[in-house]
C-alpha cells in the first residue's frame, strides 16, 4: 500500500486512541465508566448504536456479498424498523427507568438470581466468541492483503481499541463511535462516487448489467424456511432477531442506557429504524458496483493473494494456463457486457450471450478455487477479499487509505462496544453480585478496567482461530442465534403479569434446547430459530407460572 494510505491509517489509529483518552473525564465512578452518568444526547447514542452494529464485516464482507450475490441480503434487516418501534414502547422504558447497569440485572429484580446469571453467562460466552470473529474478519483480510502475520493485523485492531475502551469507558466508546460512523459513511459514499466516475458505462447501463445477472433481485417472496434470506424470514425472523439483539444484548442495551432520558433513548433507536436499510442498501450497492466495474477491468482470478501465491508456487504451469483461459474469457465477456449496455429494451440476445460468457468465467474461477482447496486445505471462499483488492488497486491514493481507515473504524467501533459490555456484565452480574458486593467504586473501576483488558486479550486469541470458520458474516450471526430467541422469550415473559421465576428459567433451558435441536436436526434457517426460541420460552414459561400460581 502507498505510504500516503498508510499515513492516513496510522494518523486515524493514533487520533482514535488520543481522543478516546481525552474523553475519559468523569469516568472515575462506576456510573461514569459504564453509564456515562446517563448524560449523552440521542444523536450520540443513536450513532453509537449504529456503529456498534456495523462491523468490519459490513465494510468488506457485505459489499463482497453484494458483488457475488446481489442485494438480497438486505432482507435480513426488513424487521429492524418495526423492532425498534416496539422496543421504544416496551423494553427501553423498562430498562432505562429501572436504573440497572445490565439487561440481566433487571431479570433478577423481576425473576431471580439464577435467571440473571444464566442469561449473563450466555451473553459472555456468545459475545466473547463473536467479538473474536468480528476482529478476525479484518485481521485475516489485512494479513493476506498487506502480507503481514495475522497476529500483527489482529494487534493493529485490538490494541488501540482496548486502550481507549479501558481508559475512557463507555463515554470514550460512544464518542469514538460517532466519529467512526461519520468516517464509515464518508468512505462508503466516496467509493460509490469513484465507481460512478470510473465506470466506462452510464449508471443506467451499469444497473442493466447488474440486473441481467440477478444482482438487483432484492425480494424473495417464497415461504421457504430452509431458504436463508426471504421476505418472510426477514420480516418475521428478522424482527425477532432485532428485538433480541437491540432489546436484550448488553452491547446494545448499554448504548441507550447512557442516554439522558427515556425519550432520548427511544429517539436514539429510531435513528437505526430510519437509516439502517438505506445504509445497508448503499453497502450492498457498492458491491454490485464493483461487480459491474470488473466487467470492464480484469480482476485477479483469485482475490486472496495468499491463496494465489500458494497455487502459483505449487502448480505454476497449470495456473498459468488457467490465467490464459481466464484472460480470453474475460475479453469475450467484456464485449458481451458492452453489448448488453448498448442493447435496446426487450432485446434478449445480448443478455443471453453475456450470461453465457459470465458462466464461462465462473467455471474458470471455480477451477482456480478448487486448486486453492487442494493446495491449502482452506475454504476457497474469497468473498471477503474482493473489496480490499478493489480498493487498493483501483481507488486513488488517499481514498484507499480513507477506506482502509473506515474498515478499521468499523471494526473498532463494534469491538469497543462489545468489550465495554463484556466488562460491564462480568463486573456487575458476576464479580459484584457473587464475589465482592460491598467494595468501593475505585475497586470496581480497577476490576472493570482489568476485565476490559482480559476480554480484549481473549478476543485476540479467538480471532487467530476464527479465521478458518468460513463465511464470517454467518458465523457472527449464528453464534448469537443459538441464544438470542430464548433470551428474548425471557424478557417477553417478564412483561407478562404473574409470570414466575421457575417458568422463566425452565422456559429458557427448554427454549435453547429446542433451538439447538432445530439448528442441528432440521433444515430450518437461523433467522427462524429466533422465533422458535422466543415462542418456546413463552409456551413453557406461561403454563408453568400459571401452575405455580394455582398451587399458591
Amino acid at each position, binding site marked *: 500500500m502507498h505510504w500516503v494510505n498508510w499515513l492516513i491509517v496510522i494518523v486515524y489509529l493514533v487520533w482514535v486512541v488520543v481522543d478516546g483518552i481525552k474523553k475519559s473525564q468523569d469516568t472515575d465512578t462506576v456510573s461514569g465508566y459504564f453509564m456515562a452518568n446517563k448524560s449523552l444526547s440521542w444523536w450520540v447514542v443513536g450513532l453509537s448504536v449504529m456503529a456498534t452494529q456495523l462491523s468490519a464485516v459490513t465494510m468488506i464482507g457485505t459489499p463482497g456479498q453484494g458483488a457475488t450475490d446481489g442485494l438480497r441480503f438486505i432482507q435480513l434487516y426488513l424487521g429492524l424498523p418495526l423492532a425498534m418501534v416496539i422496543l*421504544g414502547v416496551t423494553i427501553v422504558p423498562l430498562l432505562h427507568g429501572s436504573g440497572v447497569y445490565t439487561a440481566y440485572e433487571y431479570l433478577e429484580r423481576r425473576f431471580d438470581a439464577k435467571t440473571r446469571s444464566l442469561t449473563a453467562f450466555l451473553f459472555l460466552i456468545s459475545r466473547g466468541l463473536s467479538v473474536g470473529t468480528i476482529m478476525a474478519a479484518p485481521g485475516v483480510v489485512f494479513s493476506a492483503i498487506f502480507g503481514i502475520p495475522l497476529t500483527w493485523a489482529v494487534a493493529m485492531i485490538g490494541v488501540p481499541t482496548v486502550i481507549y475502551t479501558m481508559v475512557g469507558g463507555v463515554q470514550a466508546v460512544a464518542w469514538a463511535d460517532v466519529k467512526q460512523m461519520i468516517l464509515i459513511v464518508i468512505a462508503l459514499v466516496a467509493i460509490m462516487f469513484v465507481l460512478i466516475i470510473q465506470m466506462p458505462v452510464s449508471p443506467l447501463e451499469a444497473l442493466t448489467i447488474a*440486473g441481467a445477472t*440477478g444482482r438487483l433481485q432484492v425480494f424473495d417472496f417464497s415461504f421457504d424456511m430452509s431458504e436463508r434470506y426471504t421476505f418472510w424470514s426477514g420480516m418475521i425472523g428478522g424482527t425477532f432477531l432485532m428485538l433480541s439483539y437491540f432489546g436484550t444484548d448488553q452491547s446494545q442495551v448499554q448504548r441507550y442506557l447512557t442516554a439522558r432520558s427515556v425519550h432520548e433513548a427511544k429517539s436514539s433507536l429510531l435513528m437505526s*429504524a430510519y437509516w439502517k436499510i438505506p445504509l445497508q442498501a448503499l453497502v450492498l450497492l457498492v458491491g454490485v458496483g464493483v461487480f459491474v466495474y470488473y466487467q470492464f477491468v480484469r480482476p485477479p482470478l483469485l482475490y486472496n493473494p495468499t491463496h494465489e501465491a500458494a497455487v502459483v508456487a505449487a502448480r505454476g504451469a497449470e495456473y498459468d494456463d488457467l490465467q490464459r483461459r481466464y484472460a480470453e474469457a474475460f475479453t469475450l465477456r467484456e464485449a458481451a457486457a458492452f453489448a448488453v449496455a448498448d442493447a435496446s429494451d426487450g432485446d434478449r440476445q445480448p443478455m443471453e450471450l453475456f450470461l453465457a460468457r459470465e458462466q464461462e468465467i465462473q467455471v474458470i474461477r471455480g477451477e482456480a478455487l478448487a486448486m486453492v482447496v487442494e493446495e491449502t486445505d482452506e475454504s476457497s471462499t474469497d468473498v471477503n477479499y474482493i473489496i480490499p483488492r478493489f480498493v487498493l488497486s483501483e481507488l486513488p491514493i488517499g481514498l484507499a487509505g480513507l477506506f482502509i481507515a473506515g474498515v478499521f473504524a468499523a471494526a473498532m467501533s463494534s469491538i469497543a462496544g462489545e468489550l465495554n459490555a463484556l466488562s460491564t456484565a462480568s463486573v456487575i452480574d458476576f464479580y459484584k453480585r457473587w464475589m465482592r458486593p460491598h467494595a468501593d467504586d475505585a475497586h470496581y473501576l480497577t476490576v472493570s478496567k482489568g476485565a476490559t483488558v482480559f476480554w480484549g486479550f481473549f478476543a485476540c486469541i479467538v480471532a487467530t482461530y476464527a479465521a478458518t470458520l468460513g463465511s464470517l458474516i454467518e458465523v457472527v450471526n449464528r453464534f448469537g442465534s443459538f441464544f438470542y430467541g430464548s433470551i428474548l422469550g425471557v424478557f417477553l415473559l417478564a412483561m407478562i403479569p404473574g409470570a414466575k421465576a421457575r417458568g422463566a428459567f425452565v422456559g429458557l433451558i427448554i427454549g435453547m434446547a429446542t433451538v439447538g435441536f432445530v439448528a442441528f436436526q432440521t433444515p430450518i434457517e437461523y433467522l427462524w430459530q429466533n422465533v422458535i426460541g422466543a415462542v418456546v420460552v413463552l409456551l413453557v414459561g406461561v403454563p408453568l407460572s400459571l401452575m405455580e400460581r394455582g398451587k399458591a
Partner: protein
Amino acid sequence: MVDDTQETSSGGSRFRITLIRVIIVQIIALGLLLWLQIRFGR
C-alpha cells in the same frame, strides 16, 4: 412518578405516530429497491 404517568398516557398515540412515520420511510426505501428489481431484473 408524574413523568411516568405522562409517558404512559400519551405513549399510545406517540407510538402510532412513530410507527406510521417509520412505515412511510420504509415503504419509500423498499419501494425503490422493488423498482430496481422490477425495472432491471431478469
